[in-house]
């Protein structure tokens, strides 16, 4: 059998997906072919065939090696960004679905504050509104699904990039093809079922089985760069869609925080919650120490209770701004990913620092939100 020892491929002109004519290829030697015997013939006798094959391979995919490391880095950043953004959007859908309970509580309390005695009766959110909220939640979930599908495409890209053609050819041939195909499926789902990338043709798979590592490397490079462009296209589509709907999402966050704040104020007015949940963070923020017995002082002071109520309303404004900031950070994360897709395309390298910074901020805000909700954040850390 042929033993193939991969050597660095020396090329001019950087990484390009444009086919390089075999006659102009500057590839010095992709592999050193060591003598061996197949059926009594020295394999060196097939060298002319291999030269032709290598030339054809260069024409197929250019000369440079597959940009596996930067593609992996980009794919990981993409997974993080889509994971965090998806979490934020799904939170919104969940809150829409769960709004009825707090809403019914608030409206009934308000009715019972009326001087008209017969007004005090349980008042559940009208079914029509409940159906509308659930319908809107379904639409919001569709956006989260699109983000998740983009995450699946990054996952397939990561798998493709993780496949080391030169060191694990035989064992990984199948997984490389599966990876390319699975990306095709993931990309197709981003494009309404229309395929972005054809599956790896059977005859190419057969060639890989024969150990044409250099061909596999070219094909992998071609696949990665093509995947880079097609994922970037999907990111752009998603980013533009989310940007177009920005105003809807901004009002929705305000709407939901408004509902929650109204219910919290009822809890507060009815003295079902301790004023210290508001007072203690305020004292911390002002760097002052509360005296012992502060809680009973607040309970007996209408002025203090009114002042704390104002603080609660101010806090809800901050909550709205934070939620809106997370949505904007999600879009900024997609923008940052787009820049890195461009870098991979033009320079063959990526610097995902800005993606990481934006996503870290988003995750920190999500973690804070989850803590407030008594839940664990499910964003990827």
């Amino acid at each position: 059998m042929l033993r193939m020892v991969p050597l660095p491929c020396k090329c001019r002109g950087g990484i390009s997906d444009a086919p390089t004519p075999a006659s102009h290829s500057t590839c010095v030697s992709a592999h050193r072919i060591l003598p061996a015997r197949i059926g009594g013939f020295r394999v060196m006798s097939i060298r002319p065939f291999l030269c032709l094959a290598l030339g054809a391979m260069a024409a197929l995919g250019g000369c440079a090696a597959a940009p596996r490391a930067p593609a992996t880095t980009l794919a990981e950043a993409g997974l993080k960004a889509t994971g965090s953004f998806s979490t934020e959007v799904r939170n919104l859908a969940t809150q829409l679905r769960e709004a009825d309970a707090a809403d019914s509580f608030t409206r009934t309390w308000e009715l019972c504050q009326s001087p008209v005695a017969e007004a005090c009766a349980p008042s559940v959110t009208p079914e029509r509104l409940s159906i509308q909220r659930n319908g809107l939640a379904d639409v919001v979930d569709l956006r989260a699904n699109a983000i998740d599908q983009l995450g699946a495409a990054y996952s397939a890209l990561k798998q493709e990039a993780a496949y080391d053609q030169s060191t694990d050819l035989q064992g990984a041939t199948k997984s490389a093809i599966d990876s390319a195909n699975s990306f095709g499926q993931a990309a197709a789902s981003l494009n309404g079922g229309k395929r972005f990338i054809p599956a790896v043709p059977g005859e190419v798979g057969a060639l890989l089985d024969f150990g044409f590592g250099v061909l596999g490397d070219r094909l992998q490079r071609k696949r990665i760069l093509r995947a880079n462009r097609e994922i970037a296209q999907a990111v752009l589509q998603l980013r533009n869609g989310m940007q177009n709907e920005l105003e809807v999402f901004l009002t929705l966050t305000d709407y939901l925080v408004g509902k929650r704040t109204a219910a919290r104020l009822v809890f507060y007015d009815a003295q079902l919650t301790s004023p210290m949940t508001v007072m203690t963070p305020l004292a911390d923020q002002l760097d002052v120490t509360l005296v012992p017995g502060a809680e009973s002082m607040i309970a007996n002071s209408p002025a203090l209770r009114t002042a704390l109520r104002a603080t609660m309303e101010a806090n809800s404004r901050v909550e709205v701004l934070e939620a809106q900031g997370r949505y904007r950070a999600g879009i900024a994360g997609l923008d940052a990913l787009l820049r890195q897709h461009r870098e991979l395309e033009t320079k063959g390298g990526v610097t995902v620092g800005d993606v990481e910074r934006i996503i870290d901020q988003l995750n920190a805000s999500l973690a804070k939100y989850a803590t407030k909700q008594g839940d664990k954040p499910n964003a990827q850390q």
Partner: protein
Amino acid sequence: MPSSSANDRLTVIYKAYKSAFARRADDLKQATTTEQIQAVMNNVDALEGSYLDAARKSLDATGPDIEACYQAAQSATAAVDKAYAQGKALAERITAVSAVVSAVGSLVTKAAAVA
């Protein structure tokens, strides 16, 4: 006259709901009949329904009738703000909010129609 954008329309609809929701508790405290209570609740629910409808649909149809609806919604909302600022009686405020409900409803229906 500059034409309104889909976001302008969504904003006026959302603000109309938000204001009515924020005023609901005080309005109910001032209500003296079950009819007034029902009217206050119906107005807020109708505005909330219009907002949820608007959030789901794209309010990007264009035309002079849509601009007229947008202007009517803005004027009706301003009239409500004025009524509250001037401390008008609840009955008068309810009537003013009902006018916003009608104006906003028309805006959503027409602006969401396929051009």
